[in-house]
């Protein structure tokens, strides 16, 4: 298979093209602008639609229109842009329109900076805008994984008729790594629900309004059932050196790469550490953490935020083991020695 050296943003764009994306709508924001730029160059020549919207609000609503009309569609942005897209995301979730959203997270809150961060975890995993709705959230740790998960994201979006978010960060978007792409797969797509204006059969409606509370409750229960199914079938995670681990480091994305190095260094010092890396942030790998809690003496959650995923770890572990948190903020990336120090400290505290 052909291997190419690519920037993360460009690898995601190329993966989306090979996944058969038909339309891209977006608004420029650092540190993800290579993605729309790649689409502007490549998509029209491959029979697709590229349009730079007047705002993130318009972009996500264009996604809603194109997705509702049955196209494979995506957008990409970074943190302040995702905040603006929350309105449209709520409608996409409510009307069950599939699409893919890439969020290359930068430091916040507010305008923050353009350095890599993980402080959008809550925004990504808790609720897609107002109302009881969720995104399926995938968190790549390498550029190869970013490409693979992008292809998966389109399939999941259509399987669940729900928006899927690729949650990366500024470094993942900007750095270069070798990447290869699987051959394109011909997909059977069910568009029996889409407003294609084909004039055949009964008229179709893309909508999220249910004035009758009982009806809306039924719709919400239907969405919850979908998420329950995703929790059974779509949970993904990586366990690294966990076989005999007595202490588990939990991290995702870029922070997991740092944590992995820290685990190796701790092992070299005789500390039996391992890494649990969620790949799906929603649905969260609850069972993997619960199982690990029977084995390890403690968890150390490492994040580039004030502590967001740590809540999901605590919920999964349910008090079976202590959960410690270490985070850096504002776009600061933790270093392996910092994390090793945290591991050493925790190992000393929980030693038998």
């Amino acid at each position, binding site marked *: 298979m052909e291997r190419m050296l690519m920037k993360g943003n460009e690898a995601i764009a190329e993966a989306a093209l090979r996944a058969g994306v038909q339309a891209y709508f977006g608004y420029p924001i650092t540190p993800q602008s290579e993605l729309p730029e790649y689409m502007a160059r490549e998509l029209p020549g491959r029979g697709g639609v590229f349009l730079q919207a007047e705002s993130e609000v318009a972009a996500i609503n264009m996604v809603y229109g194109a997705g*509702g009309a049955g196209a494979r569609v995506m957008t990409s942005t970074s943190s302040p842009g995702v905040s603006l897209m929350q*309105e449209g995301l709520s409608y996409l979730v409510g009307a069950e329109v599939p699409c893919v959203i890439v969020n290359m997270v930068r430091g916040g809150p507010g305008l923050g900076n353009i350095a890599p961060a993980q402080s959008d975890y809550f925004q990504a995993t808790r609720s897609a805008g107002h109302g009881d709705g969720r995104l399926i959230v995938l968190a790549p740790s390498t550029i190869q994984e970013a490409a693979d998960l992008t292809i998966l994201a389109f399939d999941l979006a259509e399987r669940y008729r729900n928006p899927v978010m690729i949650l990366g960060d500024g470094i993942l978007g900007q750095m270069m790594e070798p990447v290869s792409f699987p051959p394109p797969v011909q997909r059977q797509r069910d568009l029996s629900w889409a407003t294609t*204006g*084909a004039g055949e059969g009964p008229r179709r409606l893309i909508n999220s309004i249910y004035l009758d509370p009982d009806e809306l409750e039924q719709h919400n229960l239907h969405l919850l059932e979908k998420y329950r199914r995703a929790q059974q079938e779509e949970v993904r995670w990586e366990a690294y050196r966990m076989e005999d681990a007595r202490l588990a480091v939990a991290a995702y994305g870029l922070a997991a790469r740092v944590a992995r190095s820290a685990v190796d260094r701790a092992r070299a010092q005789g500390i039996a550490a391992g890494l649990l890396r969620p790949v799906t942030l929603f649905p969260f790998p609850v069972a993997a953490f619960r199982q690990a809690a029977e084995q390890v003496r403690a968890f150390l959650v490492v994040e580039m935020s004030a502590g967001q995923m740590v809540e999901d770890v605590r919920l999964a572990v349910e008090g079976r083991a202590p959960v410690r948190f270490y985070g850096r903020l504002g776009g600061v990336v933790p270093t392996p020695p910092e994390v090793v120090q945290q591991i050493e400290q925790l190992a000393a505290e929980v030693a038998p």
Partner: protein
Amino acid sequence: MKQVTARPKVLLDVPMHYCPGCTHGVAHRLVAEAIDELGIRGRTIGVASVGCSVFMYNYFDLDFQQAAHGRAPAVATGIKRVLPDRIVFTYQGDGDLAAIGTAEIVHAANRGENITVIFINNAVYGMTGGQMAPTTLLGMRTTTTPFGRDARQAGYPIRVVELLNTLRGPAYLARVALAGPGNIHRAKKAIRRAFQTQVEGKGFSLVEVLSTCPVTWGLPPVEAVRWLEEHMLPEFPLGEFRTPEPREAVLMPLGGGKEG
């Protein structure tokens, strides 16, 4: 006996939810007649907006997408770009189009997006209970301008067609009024021409339809029509402001507001 009129095929035979005297029913019929006459029923997709007309998809035998407040032009853009051979239209009120959705309408128009916009201007927020709209007239009382709209506090009524007419993107821009048979006839011609513009691939078309809201205006339907003629027409002049050929702006009045 010769039948001279009938229910448009695309308009379903179901009761509408609009208040007595509301002109949404008339506007719906004019849209339906245009779709029937142009023979585009089998390839038209509607975008319903927030406000009283959110349920318009219950009355049209067409595929519909419902859009968030003000975002219908963006939603229509998304649909039209991936299905360019379909006819895509939005139907938006003044709060939706001229307040929260100002950016979306300006940029869709400026791109010359090949969609049709039916813009219902009744100078007030109807569904939310009669608050000030961007098109509320100076001195007009609403629930949020209880002493009458004061320009120093709330600015001026926005003339949407004139605003969009400063852009190079639009192909067809017109303002009509649902007041009296003559005006309604001209409104029908303008709406049909707007759809025709899209069918011919000439670009963005918008028809502003001056309408009544008897309930929030606190007027009986007939008096509401008279109020429209007396107060809205001086503020919002009727006519075709832009036609596809020539591309330059030309003011071609469709006719006066008052019917004898």
